[in-house]
């Protein structure tokens, strides 16, 4: 029953004969990316960014994606969000090919992009104005308020974004990404611009959110400690054009508090990841050399 999706990716569609897959809970892999290749067209010809990207995230899982700068990690988030379609290869959510944006996705970026003319509460409510919902206005507000309370922003509902600190804005941005109860939460370096202490606070808040909200997460990050602290799977991408180079499973029994960082297992995982990043960057340097050699 659980393997069905890997055999016939589109089998969740009702007109195909697979009664087992009608129940979403039985679908194991929520996000599935298969051999995705993509190139941007630039003035100096096509610029390949993805070359053989493979990724699968189980329902309720949390996957971190790390890799050298500019290797195509943000392109990956746009693919999963349905904001662009790859040149070749497929992206599936629940076994359905992603070709357009869908309301079951929530996004948060490094820039919290709150709307300055709205209060914090109105900002969090924004997705509920777009996504079709049966909730009453009152229920919507209750949902938003409870999320804000969960991230420690109780009492700031009627403030403007300009009155909040960077960390607080990022928390509000997380609430906005989750308010419509998305299946998939896409985080594109959301903690990258914060100071170290604020960042650790937000890591803890992410764990609390994960315990309360039933989302499946993809986190793009540059911080290896962040990746093993938050994710149950870390995917290392090679340098541009990116392919999946290495997948690290973080043991689920690992305690998720900051002391976890200082155990021998964590040190091992970090060493492995650092090693993989080094390999990725060396590969990138080689590609750059050969291509510059070819052009001369």
């Amino acid at each position, binding site marked *: 029953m659980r393997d069905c999706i890997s055999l016939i990716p589109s089998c969740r569609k009702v007109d195909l004969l697979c009664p087992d897959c009608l129940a979403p809970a039985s679908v194991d892999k929520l996000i599935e990316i298969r051999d995705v290749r993509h190139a941007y067209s630039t003035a100096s010809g096509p610029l390949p960014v993805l070359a053989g990207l493979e990724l699968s995230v189980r329902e309720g899982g949390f996957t971190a994606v790390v890799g050298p700068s500019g290797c195509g990690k943000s392109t990956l988030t746009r693919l999963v969000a349905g904001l662009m379609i790859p040149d070749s290869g497929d992206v599936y959510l629940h076994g359905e090919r992603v070709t357009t944006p869908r309301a079951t996705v929530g996004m948060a970026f490094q*820039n919290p992009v709150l709307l300055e*003319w709205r209060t914090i509460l109105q900002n969090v409510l924004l997705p509920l104005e*777009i996504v079709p919902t049966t909730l009453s206005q009152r229920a919507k507000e209750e949902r938003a308020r409870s999320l804000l309370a969960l991230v420690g922003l109780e009492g700031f509902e009627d403030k403007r974004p300009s009155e909040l600190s960077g960390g607080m804005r990022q928390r509000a941005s997380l609430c906005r990404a989750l308010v419509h109860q998305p299946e998939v939460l896409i985080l594109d370096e959301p903690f990258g611009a914060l100071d170290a202490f604020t960042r650790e606070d937000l890591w803890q808040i992410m764990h609390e959110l994960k315990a309360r909200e039933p989302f499946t997460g993809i986190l793009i990050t540059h911080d290896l400690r962040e990746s093993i602290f938050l994710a149950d799977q870390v995917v290392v991408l090679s340098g541009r054009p990116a392919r999946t180079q290495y997948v690290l499973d973080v043991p689920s029994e690992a305690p998720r508090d900051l002391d976890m960082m200082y155990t021998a297992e964590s040190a091992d995982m970090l060493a492995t990841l650092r090693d993989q990043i080094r390999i990725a960057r060396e590969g990138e340097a080689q590609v750059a050399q050969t291509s510059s050699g070819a052009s001369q």
Partner: protein
Amino acid sequence: MSMRKLLVPLIALLVFLLLWEALVWFNDWPNYKMASPSDLLPAYQRYWGLFLTMGWQTLWRTVVGLLLAVVVGVLLGMVMGFSRTMRDALYPLLVGFNAVPKATVVPIVALLFVGAHDFNTILIAFMISFFPIAVSVSIGLSTLEPEYRDILRSLGASRFTIFRKIALPKTLPEFFGALKVAVTLAFIGTNLMEIVSPHGRGLGALFDSGKTNSDYPLMFAVLIALAFLGIVLYYVVVALENIFAGWAERAQD
């Protein structure tokens, strides 16, 4: 606080009038060289009826010209803000158009639509004031960070929804900034036409008749009346800005 807000500019105005009066007094300038504030009062007393009707004519034509500039400026700004091609195509044209001194366009328009005085005046007020609006709206729209768009687009929002919920409100502060510039420009446009065009109406024509009759205090009185109208309209725009884009103002002490 509000007492202070009112008192400071009033005192500044009083100091300005005193300095002006003193300047004329000490130099012993005659009326035809430079009128002093104390000469203005009799001018207003003698012609107050004319000031009211002419002032109203100038005001309504300026406002209509300005409204036209807002409509056309916003539409042009939207076209240039959303389409790179249109921006590349229209920008040099607009800059060239704006660089032409409007004083030189006034006689052309006056000849082109001879006799259509209201229309001509509104046209010049519009032509002189739409440019800053078009530029600011186009810059506001084209510099919208892609993440803002992605937040709504990833939820399946239409282009129109994104424009209404994000692009439009985000551009309002730039729009009002440009509108403040456009208000004073529109007054200049209206008066250029009123002064130049024959059998004119409005404060510009009153200025012109002051000139022909060597009534110098009247000419100065017209200038002050124009300044007054300009200030009134400017603060109407400020009031609108506070209502619609007050969020852009940083919280003060």
